[in-house]
């Protein structure tokens, strides 16, 4: 059974702000993997006592148990607690800072990192995929917004690792969508992917030709999405409520959670209806009317902002609107009629979402997983980095080494030396962003060159290589130019976990409840069980002579094993599998002898038995 690990397919996972799902390539086509509640796993985790729920069951708990139910975790990835000051107000759960100031969620006395929380979601998606496929899954491609920075990508990667997945690649959501779309609908021309999801916005412009998907430019905002539309509705309703005597000083987590749900429902209703009513969950049970017109006025500035990113991406791609052959809509928020209308007006052509804006990203990720595991080599995605990467120079000025919209992998080399006699270490601070001063950009971390042989100032010459890999994640290496030897380098991420911290989480995270281990064991055993049952049935066709009661015993053992297969107890499955193996042991020996005997026609059965023995 050990070799089925290599044969198990790699899946594609769309880890969304609001919803997540997995897909796999079957017979050359990507398909979404549905669980007991459908393919979509809401990205919600709810804690109770010592247990937690993920997905649909957790969604029910949002109202009953609001301060123990976490959603929109993706917004916390790779952020400090201070970055999230603006979100604190509207979230019913508590955002806290961990010991290093990174954004975390506080549930009772526990501090949970967004990486672990995302791992819990991934774990559930993985479980669902395993149930759908009937095999264990070890490898995945996970998607992120194109505009995610290094820290956010690393955090996603780490979450995959904690969830027990080898992350083959982090790919950008709009490019993943283009891959699924290009496979199905169009294989050449300039394509715009407009991706407005629950929490993030991306625009990518691609050139498609002969199976190559070349990203020309990307732009976006990792803090602009459907969540913000909900917030606009909640602000409006709260304001209306206050005018009608709703006390504002005490908006409990429960009311906040109810309002969030009401806002989501209203938003969706307004895609089909011109007016809806929002119930404000207070003693008075206030009802407030919201027209589509009013809703559109509330979100118009945000929608216009997405168009200004489109403009920037066009400039960066060196294209004009006339060059665009197709516009694809991705993400649930593109269902909003205003969004669609504005995008179509901007690009002067109808926009398409034939593949379903919710699934297309996961489907594309599955295609990429297929490519990376050797399933096909006719398609190739050439992606870019959304942000310039640079180092700090004198006066806090940003010195860019790799420019935004540069193709990845991308490399830059830089020579460093010492300032002081006998200096043995040099710290290099790396940033991402487009602003002139490093203080206005995102600090990625410090890379410390250590173990430099003490020499006069300026004598050591150390060449540092900054390489952005195909995941958009930075790898730094250093070499002493004179000796040619690798130079030691220590990485201190500003907004991420160190290797040790990740490894500790892999071992100790709450995500690894016992039932996960049981589940994995069960799946492995169930594979073995199915194989043995199949082989035994085949033997029945070949063998005609049985000992008294032997065949009946075997049939009973198969029936019991099949019953165990329908349950979820690996212990019981093991027992029943052993029983079947015992019942067929004698038959197996006879078959092996027979096979050898017929192969060695000239020899006597006795000799053949000796050979076997």
């Amino acid at each position, binding site marked *: 059974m050990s070799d089925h690990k290599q044969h198990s397919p790699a899946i594609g996972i769309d880890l969304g702000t609001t919803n997540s799902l997995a897909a796999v390539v079957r017979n050359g086509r990507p398909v979404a993997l549905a669980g007991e509640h459908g393919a979509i796993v809401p990205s919600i985790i709810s804690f109770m006592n010592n247990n937690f729920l993920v997905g649909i069951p957790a969604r029910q708990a949002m109202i009953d148990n609001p301060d123990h139910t976490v959603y929109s975790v993706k917004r916390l990835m790779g952020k400090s607690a201070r970055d999230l000051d603006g979100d604190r107000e509207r979230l019913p759960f508590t955002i806290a800072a961990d010991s290093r100031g990174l954004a975390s969620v506080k549930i009772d006395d526990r501090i949970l990192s967004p990486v672990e929380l995302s791992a819990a979601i991934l774990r559930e998606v993985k479980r669902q995929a395993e149930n759908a496929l009937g095999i264990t899954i070890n490898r995945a491609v996970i998607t992120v917004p194109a505009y995610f920075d290094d820290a956010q990508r690393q955090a996603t990667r780490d979450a995959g690792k904690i969830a027990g997945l080898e992350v083959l690649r982090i790919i950008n959501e709009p490019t993943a969508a283009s891959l699924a779309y290009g496979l199905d609908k169009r294989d050449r021309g300039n394509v715009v992917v407009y991706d407005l999801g629950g929490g993030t916005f991306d625009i990518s412009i691609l050139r498609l*030709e002969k199976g*190559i998907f070349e990203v020309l430019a990307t732009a976006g905002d990792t803090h602009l999405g459907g969540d913000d539309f909900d917030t606009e509705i909640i602000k409006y309703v709260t304001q209306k409520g206050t005018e009608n005597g709703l006390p504002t000083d005490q908006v409990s987590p429960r009311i906040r959670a109810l309002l969030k749900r009401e806002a989501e429902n209203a938003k969706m209703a307004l895609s089909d209806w011109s007016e809806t009513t929002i119930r404000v969950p207070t003693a008075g049970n206030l009802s407030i009317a919201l027209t589509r017109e009013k809703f559109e006025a509330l979100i118009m500035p945000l929608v216009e902002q997405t168009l200004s990113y489109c403009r920037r991406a066009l400039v960066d791609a060196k294209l004009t609107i006339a060059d665009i052959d197709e516009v694809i809509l991705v993400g649930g928020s593109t269902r909003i009629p205003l969004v669609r209308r504005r995008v179509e007006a901007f690009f002067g052509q109808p926009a398409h979402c034939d593949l379903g804006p919710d699934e297309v990203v996961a489907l594309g990720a599955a295609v990429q997983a297929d490519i990376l595991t050797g399933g096909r080599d006719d398609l190739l995605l050439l992606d870019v980095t959304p942000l310039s990467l640079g180092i700090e120079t004198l006066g806090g000025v940003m010195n860019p080494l790799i420019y935004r919209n540069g193709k990845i*992998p991308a490399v830059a080399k830089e020579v460093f030396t010492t300032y002081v006699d006998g200096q043995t270490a040099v710290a290099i601070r790396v940033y991402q962003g487009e602003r002139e001063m490093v203080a206005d950009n995102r600090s990625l971390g410090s890379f410390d060159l250590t173990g430099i042989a003490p020499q006069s100032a300026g004598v050591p010459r150390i060449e540092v290589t900054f390489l952005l890999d195909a995941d958009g994640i930075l790898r730094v290496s250093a070499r002493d130019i004179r000796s040619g030897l690798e130079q030691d380098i220590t990485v201190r991420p500003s907004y991420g976990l160190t290797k040790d911290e990740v490894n500790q989480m892999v071992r100790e995270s709450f995500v690894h409840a016992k039932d996960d281990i049981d589940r994995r064991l069960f799946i492995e055993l169930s594979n073995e069980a199915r194989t043995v049952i199949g082989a035994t049935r085949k033997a029945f066709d070949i063998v005609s002579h049985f000992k008294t009661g032997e065949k009946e015993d075997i049939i009973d053992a198969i029936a019991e094993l099949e019953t165990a297969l329908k349950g979820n107890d690996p212990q019981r499955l093991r027992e029943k599998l052993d029983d079947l193996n015992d019942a067929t042991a004698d038959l197996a020996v006879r078959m092996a002898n027979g096979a050898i005997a017929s192969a060695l026609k000239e020899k006597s059965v006795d000799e053949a038995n000796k050979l076997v023995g």
Partner: protein
Amino acid sequence: MSRNDRPPATPTTDARHLCWACHEETGEGPFCRSCVKIQPIDQLGGYFELFGTVPTYAVDIAVLRDKFYELSRRLHPDFYAGNSEPEKELARNNSAYLNAAFRTLVDPIRRAEYLLSTRAGGYASNPTPPQDLFEEILEIGELLVESDLSADDCGKLAQAGTVFRDRQDAWLASLTDLFSRLLAGDMAIRTEIEARLNNIKYLRTILSRIDRRVNDAA
């Protein structure tokens, strides 16, 4: 700390390289001719050599792109995901080098800089405002720092943008001839190329700032 962003290529076409895996001579392509393992492509001589052309300023962008796609299909890390760690690392580095090469050759300014640094002993970038456009540049400079622009100002910016862009394009076109003389051995032409390139680079910076202002105002 010193800056070193010159392209790493020094022409070494006649150098012989031994394969990292089988230690035989690799031959000329990106794959070892003995064991067919991927080799570092930065030892193939330079960007033009990688793209299979002689060094020239007059490149055909469509041909470059086709070649870039073809090379990407052979070198991209996606196709080495199941290989050994050294091969994966090589694929990463090779792909990064290929991307840098394409980015350089496809852009008329970077291509000029690359030719100067690899074929004419180096190039020190020093963007300089073109003498005859001095007045216009001054006027635009004031508009560029203006906090809110009137529609009239925006029109002026856009108009100046057109003038500068026409000039930039004309100068870029003139580089083809200048470079063919340089590459034919006329080293005296080097100073003229450098001065023109510095003017072009200045215009490009101004143009990108104009574009940004006009875009923001739209």
